[in-house]
């Protein structure tokens, strides 16, 4: 779950990391009540990246200018993410900019600090980047070592070390995938302040983080309506441009099925991984989600039951076909409880394809001949 900048900064402040004083506005008139002096910084609050380049950050010099700019910024959509509100802060006196981030390194299997003595940069394309594995359990000397390696001295060193330690505490206690301060500034007065922040909360951990309870739905704005519904139903849906709806159990099999559809000349309309152990109800919900995509002409269901029982899937199919008897459906169903499933489907008129390639080829052939009038789709 991606957080807005103002949410990230609120969490930083609660952890004892300095952030600039600020206000939030959703209407230009609200600026009259903001007393932060001039020049001000107005920043679009969006969930996407590339905000600076897109013109989502401005520095008005007086109230009149600020109101005009605020009007434009509040209407902006950046990278598909609509501006939720504006964060208003006083412009800071910057002496130096740094970069500080923490993420989980999948290759090392542990969290790492990513830091740079140059801030405000795109960290992926910068050369002067330090990566430091973080030991578990954590000790505060790690922050001091990091600040030292960045070439800092005196009060800069101790302040940055302190922030690094607080940021790690936050990363671990709130189950984050990413905690990033970019830039972390040193002001002309010698204070170290988080000027911008990006926080991603680990999706699998939200359930044990009471702090984020109920946040999820408001932070899925970059997803389609169906993708959002899938996420709330614990299904993995990614919508694509083609007309073959794909539903499988397991990420690898779903991707492999998608690849085969493409390799045999078809066009996948979605990736839907129903996950392991889906029962009849969840499988039916998954079928409905694929069915409702207006681009989908043919549904290809490929299930290899391990933790998923084939008879549960068959039950969902029986219900689904009763509701949408004209839906073009290619079914491949094998694995645990396959015999039971076959019996349940014997009277449904559905042909079961034992081989994956045969099933894919048939789905592709049908997708080419379809009437282009999807059955049961909500347009």
């Amino acid at each position, binding site marked *: 779950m991606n957080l807005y900048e103002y949410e990230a900064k609120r969490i930083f402040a609660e952890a004892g990391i300095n952030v600039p004083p600020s206000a939030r506005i959703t209407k230009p008139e609200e600026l009259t009540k903001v007393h932060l002096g001039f020049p001000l910084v107005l920043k679009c609050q969006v969930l996407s990246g590339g905000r600076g380049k897109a013109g989502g950050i401005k520095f008005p010099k007086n109230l009149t200018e600020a109101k005009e700019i605020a009007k434009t910024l509040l209407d902006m959509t950046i990278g598909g993410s609509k501006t939720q509100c504006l964060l208003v802060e006083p412009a800071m006196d910057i002496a130096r900019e740094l970069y500080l981030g923490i993420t*989980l390194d999948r290759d090392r299997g542990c969290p790492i600090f990513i830091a740079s003595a140059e801030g405000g940069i795109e960290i992926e394309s910068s050369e002067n980047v330090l990566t430091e594995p973080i030991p578990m359990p954590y000790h505060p000397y790690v922050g001091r070592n990091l600040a030292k390696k960045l070439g800092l001295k005196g009060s800069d060193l101790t302040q940055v070390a302190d922030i690094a330690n607080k940021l790690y505490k936050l990363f671990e206690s709130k189950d984050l995938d990413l905690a990033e301060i970019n830039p972390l500034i040193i002001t002309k007065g010698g204070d170290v302040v988080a000027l911008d922040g990006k926080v991603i909360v680990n999706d*699998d951990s939200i359930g044990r983080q009471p702090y984020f309870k109920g946040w999820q739905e408001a932070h899925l704005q970059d997803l389609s309506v169906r993708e959002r519904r899938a996420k709330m139903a614990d299904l993995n849906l990614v919508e694509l441009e083609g007309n073959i709806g794909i539903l499988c159990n397991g*990420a690898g099999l779903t991707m492999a099925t998608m690849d085969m559809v493409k390799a045999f000349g078809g066009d996948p309309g979605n990736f839907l991984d129903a996950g392991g152990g889906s029962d009849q109800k969840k499988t039916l919900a998954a079928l409905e989600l694929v069915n409702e995509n207006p681009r989908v002409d043919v549904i290809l269901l490929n299930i290899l039951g391990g933790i998923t029982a084939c008879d549960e899937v068959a039950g969902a199919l029986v219900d689904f076909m009763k509701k949408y008897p004209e839906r073009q459906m290619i079914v491949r169903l094998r694995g645990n409880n396959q015999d039971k499933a076959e019996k349940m489907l014997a009277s449904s008129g559905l042909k079961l394809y034992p081989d994956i390639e045969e099933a894919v080829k048939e789905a592709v052939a049908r997708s080419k001949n379809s009437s282009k009038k999807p059955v049961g789709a909500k347009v």
Partner: protein
Amino acid sequence: MILVDKKTKVVVQGATGKMGSAHAKRMLDYGTNVVAGVTPGKGGETIHGSIPIFDTVAEAVEKTGATCSCIFVPPYLALDAGYEALDAGIELLVLITEGIPPLDTAKLVAAVKAKGAKLIGPNCPGIITPGQSLIGILPGQIFKSGPVGMVSKSGTLTYEIALALTESGHGQSTCVGVGGDPVKGLDYQEVLMMFEKDPATEVMVMIGEIGGSAEEEAAAFIKKNIKKPVIGYIAGQTAPPGKRMGHAGAIISGGKGTAASKLEAFKANGVLVAMTPNEVAKQVAVALKQPAKA
């Protein structure tokens, strides 16, 4: 065969839960030596006619001599269950649970290494040595004994490819599902090296997917250390960038982790590439006919 055989004594953690109980039964029916189950508060009960339930793993190990634990507990309890197994002296942990917070997994992986134990998973289907032992959730009927060693990030895709192998007459020595999470226990290299040393394995199949760089690193490792033929398959050749494709680890980010990069690494390092599951079986047939490399 590697890691498990018919003698491997297995304890099931979370044995009386819905999934744990159903799969304990499947394992037992397959012939796996399931000697115990653990559910706190249910010690003294028996499930499926022959599996005694204990309150703690320590007691289960003491009474039955189990060396392997198959863990089915819910995600937020998995770290504790893992620590419990390790401290009870379990040597091989098979962690099936999906959705474990990655920092918990990182802590468990560090503890497993410190103890010199082995962890398969999390978010994995488990391990099978066909005809001997099935530990996890794999559908036993699609596997058969033979010379192919398999290692995979995916569950159901492993079944797909095992099925293609079995139906074309090529059985498997052992299949290991290492799991689709970004942080995990055993990795490709460790499993491939075990297959290299295993006399029953003649050919290896490595199943990868988009995300991370484990496949690229394994490819370089294979060139240096593996003499037996390896067939590689990558899922997600048509996956759009920036989208998490089901598995927590399956995402192309910042242009990294693409199928193209992994396939290229395979080709550059002498790994035979298959583009579809059925093609894996064809490549295996070819590799089995070739004389072994010196």
